[in-house]
């Protein structure tokens, strides 16, 4: 794993005796899209607010590129680009004026860079229009534009796919993956859209009730030799079970016309061969891979608000 660009250490937030975030510790390396997953009210946005210094920490500290957010805010925040909740912009200014506004706040951003970013997020046609006239999707793009203006090393996006249409989501996903791989920056994405996170992220942290519950790797999980639950559709389930038991497997009946076994890739081929040799007709074989949603509900116990 690469050098962590962000380090959260024992971060806690208490407001009036209530613990919102409870001793959160996380490391984020460069070049990774990191998902931050949790039900509503689990503390995702509070964590993000602390990462960008909008909220103070009760305990612990966050380091970005070795600079403490609590003690060297101005140095630390230089490396961060973020959208916190909705990308709210000055509605009475044009998209371009909004970007120039943020560009002026950081030395070294040229007008050329602003145009480059506008092109990148595909807003060339409407950038001179007032933000008031923008759709939610366009505001989201403008939000991404202001976040990447200064080429941050850490990009924090809170619910970035909110309000985007399927094409927009796909575009954003591809773009984020590209940013992580080509530019080598760390991307921290929060969401409650599980399927979206599954497609977008390399690793996912699951948070509930302010506590970090689990960190899971998503990319590359499929290629590993893991056993999975495999469902085989057959004409005679009883005969199939006998045939498989004879070859050392432990199948169970799954519905009227199917059986299920727990096995790995090689096991699937062996089972198929045994069934065909036993004169059983096989109509279909599919591996039932646990989706992130299943895993998520499993670890969070299906509770919605912790």
């Amino acid at each position, binding site marked *: 794993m690469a050098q962590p660009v962000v380090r959260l250490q024992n971060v806690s937030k208490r407001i009036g005796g209530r613990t919102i975030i409870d001793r959160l510790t996380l490391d984020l390396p460069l070049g990774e899209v990191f998902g931050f997953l949790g039900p509503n009210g689990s503390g995702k946005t509070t964590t993000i*607010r602390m990462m*960008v*210094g*909008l*909220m*103070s920490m009760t305990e612990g500290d966050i380091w970005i590129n070795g600079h403490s957010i609590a003690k060297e*805010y*101005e*140095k630390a*925040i*230089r490396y*961060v680009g*973020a*959208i*916190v*909740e*909705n*990308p*709210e*912009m*000055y*509605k*009475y*200014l044009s998209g371009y*004026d909004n970007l120039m*506004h*943020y560009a*002026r*706040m*950081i*030395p070294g951003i040229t007008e050329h860079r602003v145009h480059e970013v506008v092109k990148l997020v595909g807003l060339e046609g409407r950038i001179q229009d007032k933000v008031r006239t923008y759709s939610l999707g366009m505001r989201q793009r403008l939000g991404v534009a*202001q976040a990447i203006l200064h080429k941050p090393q850490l990009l924090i996006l809170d619910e970035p796919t909110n309000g985007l249409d399927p094409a927009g989501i796909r575009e954003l996903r591809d773009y984020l993956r590209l940013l992580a791989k080509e530019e080598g920056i760390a991307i921290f994405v929060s969401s409650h859209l599980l399927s979206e996170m599954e497609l977008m992220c390399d690793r996912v942290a699951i948070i509930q009730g302010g506590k970090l519950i689990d960190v899971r790797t998503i990319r590359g999980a499929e290629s590993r030799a893991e056993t999975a639950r495999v469902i085989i559709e057959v004409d005679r389930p009883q005969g199939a079970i006998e045939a498989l038991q004879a070859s050392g497997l432990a199948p169970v009946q799954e519905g009227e016309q199917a059986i299920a076994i727990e096995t790995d890739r090689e096991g699937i081929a062996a089972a198929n061969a045994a069934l065909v040799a036993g004169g059983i007709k096989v109509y279909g074989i599919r591996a039932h891979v646990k989706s992130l949603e299943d895993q998520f509900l499993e670890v969070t116990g299906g509770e919605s608000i912790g």
Partner: protein
Amino acid sequence: MGNFLQLVHNENIKIYKRARSWVMLGILVASAILISILWLSFGGRDTSMWEVMSTESMILFMLLTIFAVVIAASSVAEEFASGTIKLLLIRPWSRSKILLSKYVSIMLFAVLLAAVLFASTWLINWICFGINSAVSLDETQQMLLFPGSSGPFAYMLMYYGMKLLSLAVTLTLAFMISTIFRSGALAIGLSLFLLLGVNNFVLLLGYLEYEWIDYLLFMHLDLTKYIGATRLEDGSNLWFSLGILGAYYVIFVALTWYVFNKRDVAA
């Protein structure tokens, strides 16, 4: 790191790219024109341009104060209301400097309003009453209207200077309320209530014999009494008033910056 003037430039854009600021300036100039024309049509030309300018300035400075308070009160509150405060604060700038840039832009706007009012009342009344004027102020009139100064122009400049000083304190109060309560409406309402409402009680309060009344902010917001024709015989003097205003000013500024730096932004 970075250039602070760029922050002020940003805040200026937020003021001047909005129609309301130009409407305010327009209303100010239009009111000056209207009063002069009414004066001209009902009173004729037998008046000194300085007398009209002085009266106009007195009335319209009240309007100017309301406008400036609206801008001062909305600057921080609107960032919170619209949620833009989040994207504004996550830049390599301390919160103090971001707040200062807002404060500077508000003060610049107030000075601009005053300059426009001064210039427009001067120009309009010169056109209406000044050109080929048959009226010339004699010694006694001059002493009555513009005492203790070297002529009406110098007096008007001093008048605006005094007004601007107390305006700065008022705006700082509005800025503080809007920063602490994050509500523009509350800030506008409260500052104007204190300003317009309490000012009417000031004269009444002045008759009371309590020691602490001398230390109330509102006893000292009208500095023009120290240069005006009607000197109050209440024993106060300009330096005492400036001292009191200065003390309040320091408290307002300290509170504003303290609260803004400490606040968790959860809008």
